[in-house]
């Protein structure tokens, strides 16, 4: 792209390195003298550690260090804080609490020797009964998982409520129709294609630690390392190079990172640790695992009046969810969805189980995925009960445009949207009425065709920092913009791309505001020594937070340029007008100066007004006044084979409203990826456990991800309702499709199964699950039963 102006379809700058195989991912980092680490993991979900014998491993000729929890305890590092204020074992000392938990760390001269040496470590375990079923975790007499926590007698973590229980009860009491449904949003895994890893390089002379790590939040990680490891923060440099997908999986700090750091400190050499796929699936941050009982109250004519839900949240062995600290159930509180209700209430109980820690990940917008699934399934169940059309029922209950800004029954203030228009467009694109006719004809022929609709409201772009922080770090983000003397620019941002295309879109924002070419704006990110502090990229927060910061910092530069231009032209700054790329004298357009001319002058001996500094640099920390609320309407069409239970997604129509689109090509790409996630979660993906606590989703042979054959050609549409409080009217979009698509797929499959009287079956709707649902006996998909 050449010329001025920023927004619009622009090919990505970052692609040039990736198409040549010149990206630099963590495992591509190679330093002189680098050693390799490997983690020994627990085969048991719950066992006491009686003894660890590392002598044989230490005797391996290529082994340089063997680290156990005991080694770490000497440095006060055997435990680390989680992002939810709990603690997690870096290497287990007392007990192992999930299968795959970290027990020891070997540092060796090469990858293979490190792995060999793991087999030489002898750990004596005393197996203990495991808590596998979250619904049994609070039973009297259930094994206590967290006996390391003083005074902890059971597996209860927290209770959290939102809404008004009394009011909800009143509405439910006199409602003409009520719906109740138990539903499980099963444990799934973000499974980025690049697993987690780190290269730690501790320089004994300078005392500086450089850590290349797969992190979505390099600054927050640096601060945590400073707090935990006792290293001064200015002596820690975290570099998040190219990241092969994050989806929330790379928000937490994992024991492997800490072990690599300790390994480098002990050996005095750089240490690389990269987990394998099984380690990634079995031990790193999973998502969901929400056991929900949802209820809906409505009038017989289809007016939805209230919703309430009780949730049992399985957080695994350590409460390691990554979410703002005042929100133990994330943003699940927006479970009232896109509808105008009289009352709502939810109660969430978090429990420990003998499973890997996590809970908030996989593009979930801090659990809005679960919230949208709940309400959108309930609305379909109501449609079933009333024999109403699910699209019409939604249209009847959607918030109206004139109701915005709208504060829902649980206190969230939605900024903007035109929901009926968005849904209408999706239905038009789908040819909804014709699809229904076709469905009738298909049913008459014995074919199972299903049409699923979902409508979602997202809430993305955390903070404001007054309400949202992680371990006390407020969710506000900094940017710095510098205009070089010749008029090109460098923008330094705190957020970190994992494929979202920040190097392109953030350059486009600066270009739009300053009338530069995006090609003339370099975006620097992912290196804490080179970028201002911020909380990082997750929860679709880069555009809502750092995108706003970028627009504001560019406007600051523009205003400074105005003063410089006024000095150059010897006129009053108030007499200047802006056009893209240039300040000119009002009424005399020939008298003007471009940004490049102004930048050079700002670095020259030009006399500036009293108090005005030279150069054209500016910084900004953006504290968002509110979240942004994108929305969307999705329609999914499926065909189900009644003989095998196999579901084929025939069409998927997605209309998204994410406000102003900076780069429509990138927005559409984000939506495509999320839709594929939705098909995966609805039909294929689950991390289940057998009764003994063995993880049954520990490889890509068992944890199935959608391929090109399961995904249809996506049909996208858009409506644009700008966010009123975002400087460029943009809203986040990275997770919209992951949030909104699973209920559309499930609603479609259940709709297809209508001739069998199926009301609900839990995800994933594998052929086995669909077949069982047809038989009237759907499975509990979190357990390996049936």
């Amino acid at each position, binding site marked *: 792209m050449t010329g001025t102006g920023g927004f619009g379809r622009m090919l990505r700058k970052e*692609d040039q390195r990736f198409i040549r195989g010149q990206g630099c991912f963590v495992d*591509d980092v190679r330093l002189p003298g680098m050693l390799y680490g490997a983690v020994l993991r627990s085969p048991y979900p719950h066992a006491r550690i009686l003894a660890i014998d590392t002598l044989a491993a230490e005797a391996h000729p290529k082994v340089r260090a063997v680290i156990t929890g005991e080694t770490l305890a000497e440095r006060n590092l055997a435990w680390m804080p989680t992002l939810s204020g709990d603690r997690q074992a870096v290497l287990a000392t007392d007990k192992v609490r999930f299968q795959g938990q970290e027990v020891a760390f070997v540092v060796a001269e090469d990858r293979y020797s490190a792995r060999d040496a793991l087999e030489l470590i002898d750990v004596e375990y005393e197996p203990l009964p495991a808590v596998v079923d979250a619904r049994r975790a609070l039973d009297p007499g259930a094994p206590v998982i967290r006996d390391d926590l003083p005074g902890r007698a059971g597996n209860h973590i927290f209770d959290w409520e939102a809404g008004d229980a009394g009011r909800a009860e009143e509405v439910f009491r006199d409602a003409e129709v009520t719906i109740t449904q138990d539903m499980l949003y099963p444990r799934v895994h973000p499974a980025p*294609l690049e697993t987690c890893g780190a290269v730690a390089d501790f320089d004994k002379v300078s005392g500086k630690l450089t850590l290349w790590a797969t992190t979505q939040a390099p600054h927050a990680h640096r601060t945590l390392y400073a707090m935990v490891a006792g290293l001064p923060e200015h002596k820690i440099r975290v570099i998040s190079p190219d990241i*092969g997908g994050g989806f929330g999986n790379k928000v937490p700090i994992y024991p492997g990172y800490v072990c690599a750091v300790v390994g480098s400190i002990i050996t005095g050499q750089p240490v690389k640790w990269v987990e394998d796929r099984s380690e990634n699936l079995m031990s790193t941050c999973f998502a969901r695992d929400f056991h929900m009982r949802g209820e809906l109250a409505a009038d017989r004519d289809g007016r939805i009046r209230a919703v309430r839900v009780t949730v049992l949240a399985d957080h695994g062995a350590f409460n390691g969810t990554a979410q703002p600290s005042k929100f133990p159930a994330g943003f699940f509180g927006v479970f009232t969805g896109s509808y105008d209700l009289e009352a709502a209430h939810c109660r969430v109980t978090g429990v420990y189980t003998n499973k890997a820690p996590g809970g908030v990940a996989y593009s979930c917008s801090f659990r809005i995925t679960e919230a949208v699934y709940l309400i959108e399934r309930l609305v379909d169940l109501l449609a079933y009960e009333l024999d109403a059309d699910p699209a019409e029922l939604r249209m009847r209950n959607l918030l109206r445009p004139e109701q915005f800004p709208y504060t829902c029954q649980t206190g969230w203030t939605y900024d903007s949207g035109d929901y009926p228009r968005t849904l209408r467009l999706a239905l038009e694109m789908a040819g909804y009425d014709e699809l229904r006719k076709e469905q009738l004809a298909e049913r008459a022929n014995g074919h199972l065709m299903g049409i699923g609709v979902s409508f979602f409201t997202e809430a993305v772009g955390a903070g404001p920092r007054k309400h949202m922080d992680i371990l006390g770090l407020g969710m506000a983000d900094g940017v710095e913009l510098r205009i070089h003397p010749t008029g090109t620019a460098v923008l330094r941002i705190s957020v970190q791309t*994992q494929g979202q295309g920040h190097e392109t879109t953030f350059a486009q924002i600066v270009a739009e505001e300053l009338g530069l070419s995006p090609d003339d704006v370099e975006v620097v990110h992912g290196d804490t020594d080179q970028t201002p502090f911020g909380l990082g990229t997750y929860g679709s927060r880069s555009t809502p937070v750092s995108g706003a910061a970028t627009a504001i910092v560019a406007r600051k530069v523009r205003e400074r340029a105005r003063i410089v231009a006024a000095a150059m032209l010897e006129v009053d700054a108030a007499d200047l007008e802006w056009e893209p790329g240039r300040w000119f004298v009002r009424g005399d357009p020939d008298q003007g100066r471009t940004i490049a001319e102004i930048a050079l002058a700002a670095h020259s001996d030009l006399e500036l007004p009293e108090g005005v500094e030279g150069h054209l640099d500016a910084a900004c920390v953006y504290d968002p006044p509110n979240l942004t609320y994108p929305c969307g309407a999705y329609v999914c069409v499926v065909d189900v084979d009644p003989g095998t239970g196999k579901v084929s997604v025939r069409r998927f129509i997605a209309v998204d409203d994410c406000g102003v689109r900076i780069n429509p090509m990138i927005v559409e790409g984000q939506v495509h990826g999320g839709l594929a996630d939705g098909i995966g979660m609805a039909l294929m993906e689950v991390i289940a456990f057998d009764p003994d606590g063995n993880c049954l989703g520990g490889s890509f042979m068992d944890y199935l991800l959608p*391929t*090109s054959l399961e*995904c249809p050609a996506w049909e996208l549409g858009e409506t644009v309702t700008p966010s009123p409080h975002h400087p460029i009217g943009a809203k986040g979009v990275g997770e919209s499709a992951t949030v909104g698509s699973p209920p559309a797929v499930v609603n479609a499959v259940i709709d297809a199964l209508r001739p069998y009287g199926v009301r609900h079956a839990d995800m994933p709707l594998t052929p086995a699950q669909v077949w069982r649902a047809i038989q009237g006996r759907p499975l509990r998909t979190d357990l390996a039963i049936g």
Partner: protein
Amino acid sequence: MTIRVAMTVNGTEYARDVEPRLLLIHFIRDELGLTGSHWGCDTSNCGSCVVWLDAKPVKSCTLLAAMADGHAVRTVEGLEQDGRLDPVQQGFVECHGLQCGFCTPGMLMTARWLLDRNPDPDEAEIREAISGQICRCTGYENIVRSIRWAAEHAGQTP
């Protein structure tokens, strides 16, 4: 114990003394420093590690380096010829066929193989060809379009 493994990679002869158990992907990445090909799953499911062995795409995480002894390997680094991008490379840029870029090298190698055998594949043929590889970012649609772009612009990249 080590064995001598010699192969041609992107037209250059290499010989290394390596452990017999060394995987081809680690040979390419760690021994030769060609880090464009990625390792992603260990089980031949994800295809991040796809390279060509002679004229055929293979998953280099499940081949031993020794099995490539005496053969010709081609990786993503070998796609660009004399400073000229392969149309599949340009296609992925034009059609936003990549996001994080981790699966991209494997996808490109399969795409080139497909187009060499079938210069004008339809959507179903493209989907079939890449069905042994996983992309977590794009939902595949833009990868399909990218390969179509390459088919329509054979020999036209700058």
